[in-house]
């Protein structure tokens, strides 16, 4: 069917274009403020086109020993280790749910499903975490809340259920046990699904500050997002930052420093953007629209 370009089409393009632009412009504003000279901000306010540029805020951040660098490393560690473990746990359980030899797989599915609709609030969760010693340590950032997600489990399960049964049968006849079949046959065949949930988990870990706000008081363990949240309200944090980075400037470039710290947290997301476009969106669409 051929469709002509019309005035209507032109207006639609303008509207869509403007909306996309609005999605990007505020980010660009933040970026521009982060490279603005501090005195210029104090005099003229934030601006898209700063009168005077300065990379001083980034110099401060990337100087060795700054708390931003430490928070960044903690976030990277938690995200990488957490995502790998989470994908492994999810993939293995999904295999069992998709394994037609397991008679109670539907009951098991129900076992996983019930907590999705019946919550118990944050206090029981908090008491369990502290009871397990998940308090003021890296494990408190790694294990609670993020390491397993039932939505992701069912997503992978659906992919694995779609694989032909004969795969499983022939492997069993060849003498492989379920652990081997999961690792050697099912995982390689469901790489797109595993990559999708990997991105779900990875993004959740990277953007998380819930575990930190609930379970971590030790400033040296703050992940980058929580550090950023604290930075907004606490001028003393800024002084810390400056102290740690070993400078003694009379006026800390607090405005540009705040925005620069915000900008560096987006770095990994931009790095992973092609993969996010490819797998994340597809997974979300598959998960939401049935049939």
């Amino acid at each position: 069917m051929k469709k002509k370009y019309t005035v209507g089409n032109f207006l639609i393009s303008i509207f869509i274009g403007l909306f996309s632009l609005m999605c990007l412009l505020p980010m660009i504003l933040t970026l521009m403020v982060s490279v603005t000279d501090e005195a210029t901000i104090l005099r003229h306010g934030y601006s898209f086109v700063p009168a005077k540029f300065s990379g001083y805020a980034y110099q401060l951040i990337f100087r060795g020993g700054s708390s931003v660098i430490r928070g960044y490393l903690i976030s990277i560690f938690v995200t990488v280790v957490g995502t790998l473990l989470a994908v492994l746990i999810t993939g293995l359980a999904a295999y069992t749910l998709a394994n037609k030899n397991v008679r109670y797989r539907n009951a098991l599915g129900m076992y996983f499903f019930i907590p999705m609709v019946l919550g118990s609030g944050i206090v029981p969760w908090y008491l369990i975490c502290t009871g397990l010693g998940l308090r003021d340590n890296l494990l408190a950032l790694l294990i609670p809340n993020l390491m397993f997600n039932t939505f992701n489990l069912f997503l992978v399960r659906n992919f694995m259920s779609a694989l032909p049964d004969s795969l499983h049968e022939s492997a069993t006849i060849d003498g492989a046990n379920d652990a081997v079949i999961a690792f050697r046959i099912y995982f390689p065949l469901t790489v797109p699904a595993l990559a999708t949930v990997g991105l779900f988990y990875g993004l959740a870990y990277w953007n998380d500050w819930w575990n930190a706000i609930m379970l971590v008081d030790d400033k040296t363990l703050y992940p980058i997002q929580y550090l950023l949240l604290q930075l907004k309200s606490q001028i003393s944090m800024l002084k810390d930052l400056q102290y740690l980075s070993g400078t003694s400037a009379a006026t800390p470039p607090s405005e540009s420093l705040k925005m620069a710290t915000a900008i560096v947290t987006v770095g990994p997301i931009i790095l992973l953007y092609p993969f996010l476009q490819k797998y994340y969106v597809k997974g979300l669409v598959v998960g939401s629209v049935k049939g």
Partner: protein
Amino acid sequence: MMEGESGMTKALKVERKKKGGFFRDVARNKFSYLIALPAILYVFIFSYLSYPYMALAFQRYNYKNSTVWGVLFQGDWCGLANFKFFFNSQNAFRVTFNTLYLNILFIITGTVMAVLLALLLNELRSRKFVKTTQSVMLFPNYISWVMVSYILLSLFSTQYGVVNQFLRSIGLSGVNWYTNAGAWLGILVVMRIWKGAGMSAIIFLASIAGIDTSLYEAAAIDGANRVQMMFRITLPLIMPTVVIMTLLSLGKIMYGDFGMIYALVGDNGTLYSTTDIIDTYIFRALRQVGDMSQSTAIGLFQSVIGFVMVYGSNWLARRFYPDGALY
């Protein structure tokens, strides 16, 4: 989302009739059960073990009832005192109203915007333009609410913000946005659309892609124009997806978005009248006041109504569109 869950009880009954009990099944598939064990344990510890703690809502908290055993057998029971304390305060109505009101605003504006974007994107024929704008639109979806709060700061900061600069440049005086509770309703709604509409639009767009093209061809032969096709074919045919997505959000209406509200508003008390939700209230009662029992009580109130809402919305979804139910 959860195919296979429907008709579960029926399937279970049929399966039980086969010979061999649960333990025989485990023995037969020991590796399969073994590799699922980490997930099973995780859910057991963080979800199932948490249910007994809900009794804390009817107890006074002390060091004894901080374990499952303690909460069940050594609790200092106090009846409904924790609930009374919450419901007799001004806060109960305020936080419940704010939670529901904000969520309803988010659902309506978010859905309308997403459907509009999807319909319009569908009209565009330049693949390159659609792909590029889609990529850009999705960007806000990936960043954290903390990052969004910095974006808000660069826009609405009283001293340096771009919005106030603009207001001053046209001769008005700047507004102190961070003390203006009324304005925050609008700010929250706009930021929600900004962050989520692009992603929702793509979900609806996928639903549009599933529409049989022969319908449009037939309509074109009958002389229908593009606008008529949009309103008479596309929109009615994606309505099931729209209704289901809306009902699923309705099911979560008792749960506010803590990550959003706390990151954007934080502990700014002057904005509580419009922005304080159940989740932020519980958070403060727990982390800042340290009142375990009352926090549990509010959490239980939220869970119970939340469960009824999920169940009810799913029942509705099943009535309208039998395939669309969550379970």
